[in-house]
């Protein structure tokens, strides 16, 4: 069984202050392959991601990663043990240059060629190396955020709407990369582009008001008649 689930989320509950957002969430992420988390605005997707990475403390439930209980671990420990995270907002160090942002990403990656690899994926970033990341265009920012997270060589990559504001051509590029990546590591992706999400993911969970309302293999969820109802505002 642990063979199967790399990240195991059990009965997770979390929220902000007195307002609880997540209720009894159970999700299993396999060693390899993608998992999509879907849901309408405010469903709790970002909250879930924050809880996994430890930015938000869970009020109940357990998180197992790589067979170990990480529920009480600090964020940086989780990250160093192999979780990469692309947040939805504030996803770059705004006053640091692009170069420094990438350098922060590769702090724990001994491979000096890693940055070059990211730059070949996102050539646009290569032209902006000395610019403060805060002045990048919306799309460039996302690229940088994804690049930064990939530099850490994660075993589990959490992506919170990685393609928001990204140009169609680049989305295609990112999708291909992610599909490729999902063959090697585990990827959890929150995404509004259904097609993209379900191409990357083998498995999908749909959140509704903090609860898992629908789950199953990507294809099944896709064709589920309920799906649209859960995504409409």
């Amino acid at each position, binding site marked *: 069984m642990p063979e199967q689930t790399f990240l195991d989320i059990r009965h997770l509950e979390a929220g902000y202050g007195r307002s609880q957002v997540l209720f009894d969430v159970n999700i299993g992420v396999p060693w390899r392959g993608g998992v999509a988390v879907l849901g309408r605005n405010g469903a709790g997707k970002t909250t879930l991601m924050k809880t996994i*990475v*430890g*930015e938000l403390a869970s009020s109940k439930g357990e998180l197992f990663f790589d067979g170990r209980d990480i529920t009480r671990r*600090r*964020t*940086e420990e989780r*990250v*160093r043990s192999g979780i990469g*995270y692309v*947040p939805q907002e*504030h*996803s*770059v*160090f*705004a*006053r*640091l*240059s692009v170069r*420094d942002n990438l*350098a*922060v*990403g590769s*702090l*724990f990656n001994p491979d000096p060629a890693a940055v070059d690899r990211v730059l070949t994926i996102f050539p646009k970033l290569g032209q902006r190396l000395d610019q*403060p990341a805060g002045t990048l265009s919306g799309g460039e920012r996302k690229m940088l955020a994804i690049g*930064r997270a990939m530099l*850490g060589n994660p075993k589990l990559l959490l992506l919170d709407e990685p393609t928001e504001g990204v140009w169609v051509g680049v989305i295609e590029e990112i999708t291909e990369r992610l599909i490729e990546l999902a063959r090697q590591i585990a990827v959890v992706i929150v995404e509004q582009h259904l097609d993209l999400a379900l191409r990357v993911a083998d498995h999908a969970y749909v959140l509704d008001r903090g609860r898992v309302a629908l789950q199953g293999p990507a294809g099944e969820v896709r064709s589920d008649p309920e799906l649209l109802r859960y995504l409409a505002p």
Partner: protein
Amino acid sequence: MASTFVAAFEILSFGAIIVLVVLGLGIIASMMGIFNFAQGEFVLLGAYVTYLAYSSGIPIWVGMAVAPFIVGGLGFVLEALIIRRFYAAPIVAMLGTYALGLIVRESVRGLIGGFYLTVPEPIGGSIDIGTMHISAWRFTIIVITLLVMAGCYLLLSRTSFGLRVRATLENPALARASGISTPLIYGATFAFGAALAGLAGALIVPVFSLFADLGIRFLIQGFVAVMVGGVGSFIGPVAGAGVIGTLSAALPWVMAPVVADVLVFVLAIVFIKFRPQGLIAGKGV
């Protein structure tokens, strides 16, 4: 000619003293976004440690060498216990450090009984060049300041420490999500800033003698220097301190000291008004 040389030396040496004092302040302000009102008291503590060493018969230079470590250690502890809670609200932080400074200052005042106490310099007397005399210790301070500046620069630019610090300040949540242990970084930075203040205190106590208001004397000057230089980089505050220090030592040569005193500040504010980013628009180290 001779007097020009002496003048230049004296002005430079006071500039160096200000730089030394502002270094720690600037690092904490630029890297952590906190205008540390207790910085003056760290300077005072450095001076006090040196005095203690001297008065208990230990060689002074030993006292000077350990002062930064003791003050830095204290800074580390204070950061963990107190300062840490303030990062999100810089104005409250000003107040918290103000209270901290008040406690330290008044305690030291109690310990030294409100006196002005002298500490001799390890390298005393003056260097005589012809008919001119320049203070040996002030000369030493200039040299040490240059060394410390270079050291700090290298630390911040050549090691990943600086990068981590800046990333942490910029976006702590994201820094953690990049694997950086932010509490440690904060603690280390604050301790480093405090240690520099401790060093400054240790070095300047022979010049100014020890008294409870030794540190606070330089505080406002320090803040203005940081602003003039530009927050956000290491170089900025250093440059600002150089300018403010030399200016406030140089102006009394040409005008009434009372006027010069106010003029420095007015000039500084007008400068900042028209160049808000400071001398060195902050990026990089």
